[in-house]
């Protein structure tokens, strides 16, 4: 468990450093960087590399936005395993990411109770 915390810190931190390099060296906007990271997450999962990373680093791999691409691919592939090609399509409709739902709900609640501080 303690090594888990250590590796979560290291792996999560390194993914953030990658993002920072995209900001500072490649001069991408945050929007471009986040989109890129999500696509990277999806592709890594396509090669079966993201799950081992989650096994190894826990939240270090699930908390960065890359895991969003991973979980979407995962959902689609799961359906595909059962229903073949059609499953990819239906899988896309069924899967959601907890991140999006949570952001929608808390975003709306936030708008109800908070005012921007400037």
């Amino acid at each position, binding site marked *: 468990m303690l090594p888990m915390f250590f590796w979560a810190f290291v792996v999560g931190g390194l993914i953030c450093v990658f993002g920072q390099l995209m900001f500072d060296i490649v*001069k991408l906007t945050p929007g471009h960087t986040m989109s890129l990271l999500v696509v990277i997450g999806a592709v890594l999962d396509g090669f079966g590399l993201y799950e081992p990373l989650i096994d190894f680093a826990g939240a270090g791999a699930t908390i960065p936005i890359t895991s969003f691409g991973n979980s979407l691919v995962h959902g689609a592939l799961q359906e595909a395993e059962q229903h073949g090609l059609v499953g990819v399509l239906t899988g896309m409709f069924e899967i959601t990411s907890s991140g999006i739902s949570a952001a929608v709900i808390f975003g709306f609640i936030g708008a109800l109770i908070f005012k*921007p501080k400037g």
Partner: protein
Amino acid sequence: MLIGKQSWQFANKPVIESWGSSGGPFEAEGKLAADFDVLHDDLWMGEESYEKAHRVLLEEAIKSALQKGNFNKEDMQFMLAGDLINQITPTSFAARTMEIPYFGLFGACSTSMEGLALASFIVNYQGAKKTVTGASSHNSAAEKQFRYPTEYGGQKPPTAQWTVTGAGAAVLTDNPDKQGKIVTTSATIGKVVDMGISDPFNMGGAMAPAAADTISAHFKDLNREPSYYDLVVTGDLGRIGQATTYELLQQSGLEITKEQFKDCGLLIYNDDQPVQSGGSGAGCSASVLYGHLLNQMKNGVYKRILVVATGALLSPLSFQQNETIPCIAHAVSIEMN
């Protein structure tokens, strides 16, 4: 009277009779807090939206300018003002409150000098006896429109600048008694210059060539040496833009000293405020000129100044379409008669 290629000389010397400025909480912590007539401790200024607060800023600046000169709004023939927000609604709405015949101007952050040049021109040629001119900007309203939501945790690079929450306004009259009064004597209208900078977080670097172009044109048109002025002050070039402009001017052979070359965006905040490269926005040059600088002139610190307000003429859309940033600068010379 046209002089040279792109400058006007105001033979009748319109008088800047009174001036007023307003600012937000961040400006209240800055270096020039004492020169503001109205300071708010809340960015909302008691209004429901940032845009409405933006309108309040300009209204207050105009009202305090009128009050200090003992004018009524009915005395004013025209109002020339503008801001950065879409369709310059905050200014137009303020004009609705003021009920003064109104010219809405847009020159991005150069609006303050565009307004002062035009107002001087109108007054100089008896187009009006009294006019009011001003400009304003609101940090959160500008962030919301041009960048990200104010609560968004984006990292601003060190080249970024901080939009000033503030407004400045001045009353120009054709008062024949000009003794000991502050007057405008000439103005140079700049052309749009685009040196291919496309980074919206580096406005100073984009605006520097426009500033240098207008300043050079001013000295050429009026056949003056930089030593004529006690101070050449740019609007909101910030650290990078100011240093770049200075080098461009040196290269073009203008003998201007570092001491007489300042920037409103660098004057307004304290060094420890997190503003990266300095202040910016239409309200930056307006609130510094129609507060700090004119107060200093009145106190005899400066006799002649040249104010060069620079504007980056971009929109969020043009940036997203990969357009570079075209920039403009206007200069007005202000003298103690």
